[in-house]
């Protein structure tokens, strides 16, 4: 009965975006309160596409356990909060995952002095973990499968989890690997902690929207694809102005905003994304990659052309 989300976002003038309560590299307020990170840039990209202005976003910090309720209830338009794509979530929570912004896997971080080299040695360990995550489920599976015991110590937020780990409440902190790196730099002595090599699960992280609004779903989905495609096409925030004159038909289609009618957004939507936010590679590098404190390798998240699995359907 009501407007589609695209319409109501445009009427309202901003995108309501659910993010974490603070996870460096993904969504974290700096000391001025300005939000930064990959997830935040996704929100900004959606705003750039829908409204032409990447700054028209309101962030709602959510704990892991609030996030789906907040999305279901309509409090937020878009959940961009390191959320793992699983079948239950996709199929039975009334939600739709729009794609994968980051291919992750669950790992372990231990304190160096324990001298543990492999996750297989963790029998009987206390594990700090964030509540309401797939991590919580994977962990149980992994230990059960390997016939090991563990004691879960469950916290509400990433910060608290790190605090608990630091205070020695547990031997291991488990989370998605990217987050482990992010949390590690929050420790007072980051060098005392090591991330174990094992990856025990697939954690494709991506933005989520409510089911039943295909236009909005498509917009978010194609915002992601646009960013990947831009990287593939070599379009960056600095060169896209110049590339406007490019002869490459693919670039032209990109800049002219193929599909804008159906998505219900302005014609330069893809251009605005790259112009104001950047392409996927840029976002990755500046937030979690080499030019960030996290220094995470591209790995799986490299373009399919470069040995990774980031692949976007063509824009035509």
């Amino acid at each position, binding site marked *: *009965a*009501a407007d589609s989300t695209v319409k109501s976002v445009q009427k309202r003038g901003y995108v309501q975006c659910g993010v974490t309560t603070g996870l460096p590299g993904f969504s974290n307020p700096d000391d001025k309160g300005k939000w930064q990170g990959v997830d935040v840039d996704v929100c900004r990209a959606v705003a750039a596409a829908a409204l032409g202005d990447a700054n028209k976003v309101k962030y709602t910090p959510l704990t*892991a*356990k609030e*996030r*789906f*309720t907040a999305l*279901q*209830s*309509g409090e937020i338009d878009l959940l961009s909060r390191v959320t793992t794509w699983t079948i*239950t*979530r996709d199929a*039975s*929570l*009334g939600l739709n995952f729009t794609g994968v912004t980051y291919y992750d896997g669950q790992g372990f971080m231990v304190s160096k002095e*324990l001298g543990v080299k492999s996750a297989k040695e*963790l*029998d*009987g*360990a*206390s594990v700090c973990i964030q*509540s*309401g*995550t797939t991590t*919580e*489920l994977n*962990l*149980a*599976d992994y230990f*059960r499968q390997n016939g090991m*015991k*563990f*004691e*879960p*110590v*469950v*916290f*509400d937020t990433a910060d*608290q989890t790190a*605090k*608990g780990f630091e*205070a*020695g*409440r547990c*031997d291991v902190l488990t989370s998605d690997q990217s987050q482990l790196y992010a949390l590690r730099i929050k420790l007072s002595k980051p060098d005392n902690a090591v991330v174990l090599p094992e990856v025990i699960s697939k954690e494709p992280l991506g933005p989520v929207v*409510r*089911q*039943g609004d295909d236009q909005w779903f498509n917009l978010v989905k194609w915002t992601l694809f646009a960013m990947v495609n831009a990287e593939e096409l070599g379009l960056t925030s600095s060169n896209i102005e110049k590339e406007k004159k490019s002869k490459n038909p693919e670039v032209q289609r990109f800049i002219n905003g193929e599909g804008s009618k159906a998505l219900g957004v302005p014609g330069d939507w893809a251009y605005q994304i790259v112009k104001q936010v950047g392409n996927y590679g840029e976002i990755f590098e500046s937030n979690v990659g080499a030019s960030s404190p996290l220094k995470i390798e591209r790995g799986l998240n490299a373009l399919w052309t470069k040995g990774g699995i980031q692949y976007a359907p063509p824009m035509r």
Partner: protein
Amino acid sequence: MPSKKKDLAKGRTAFWNDPEKRSMLYQIIMLVILIICGAYIISNTLHNLDSRGIKTGFDFLWSEAGFGINQSLIEYDESHSYGRTFFVGLLNTILVASLGILLATILGFTIGIARLSNNWLIAKISAVYIETFRNIPLLLQIFFWYFAVLRPLPRPKQSIELFDVFFLNNRGLAMPAPNILEGFGWVLLVFALSLIVVIGVKRWAKNRQDTTGKGFPIISVSLAIMLGLPALTYLFVGSPIDWEVPTLRGFNYRGGITVIPELLALLLALSVYTAAFIAEIVRSGILSINKGQTEASFALGLSRPKMLKLVIIPQAMRVIIPPLTSQFLNLVKNSSLATAIGYPDLVSVFAGTTLNQTGQAIEVIAMTMAVYLTLSLLISLFMNWYNKRIALVER
């Protein structure tokens, strides 16, 4: 005033002037408004649920939970159902709340009485205690205690040991757990018997005290009987309990019972905080007792502690109970802050992880609120009953 008589003839009361009919009307209006509001909310909710593709229902309670919980009073592991997580959380809430009530009451009464001590230093320290702890948010205190408890405790390898069976470290306090073997029934039987004996001895001792005035060391004797006889039987039937002593294996002590530090910290925070309020209640309850009662007790030669015990506190209880009840209720509700430090209470386990894994917000929140309402109601009922029982008999 004949003019008045005319238009106010009896029996022709306009219905809005008849208080009964008027109140009827008000109530009907109120009901209608309530029903409309209710219907509006429900229809909105249904519509919203539908348009957002959320399925409702309690089926999820029977599906496998798949996550671990680090403290459970009933058997639980990942393969149990979400429904069971509800009971795990519920029991954990009840555990911390009831221990908290017990501790807070003891501490609160002690400090409330100490506040009135004629030792200047003690009175002042109690005052400082009260003013400090009741004026700082509980959440902050919970964080404080958590880190205050965690920080000085060693890692498991360097545990503080007591008698080689208790081990204290930052994973908690590991204690031996009893494994009951065959023959233990005898011990229980003897224990029951010794209870009966003790009751008999108590009767006899009271009788003797009443008739001859001679006291009898009833407490030590009954303790001896209650502990000694079963202990002898225990040895006689060949120690039918296998104490499972925790041992350090891998990262931590295995086996036995572990009291996790979250429980300890939460318990400390809740009881220290609530005790400050209870102390004030106790103090004002005591002060509300007429000065004449104190004077009469002194005039009879009672000492101060006896006066408090026999005369003042029993009377002050009447004044204390109602506000004490609301402190108990507050404590139960405040135990929900457990979630801040990861103690697996109802809010943390059920309204937290389970809600999140299943996405059934309405059902889960409704069940959680119902639990707190029920707990509150039970406590109120009990305290009201108790208060009635101790009410003064008057003409």
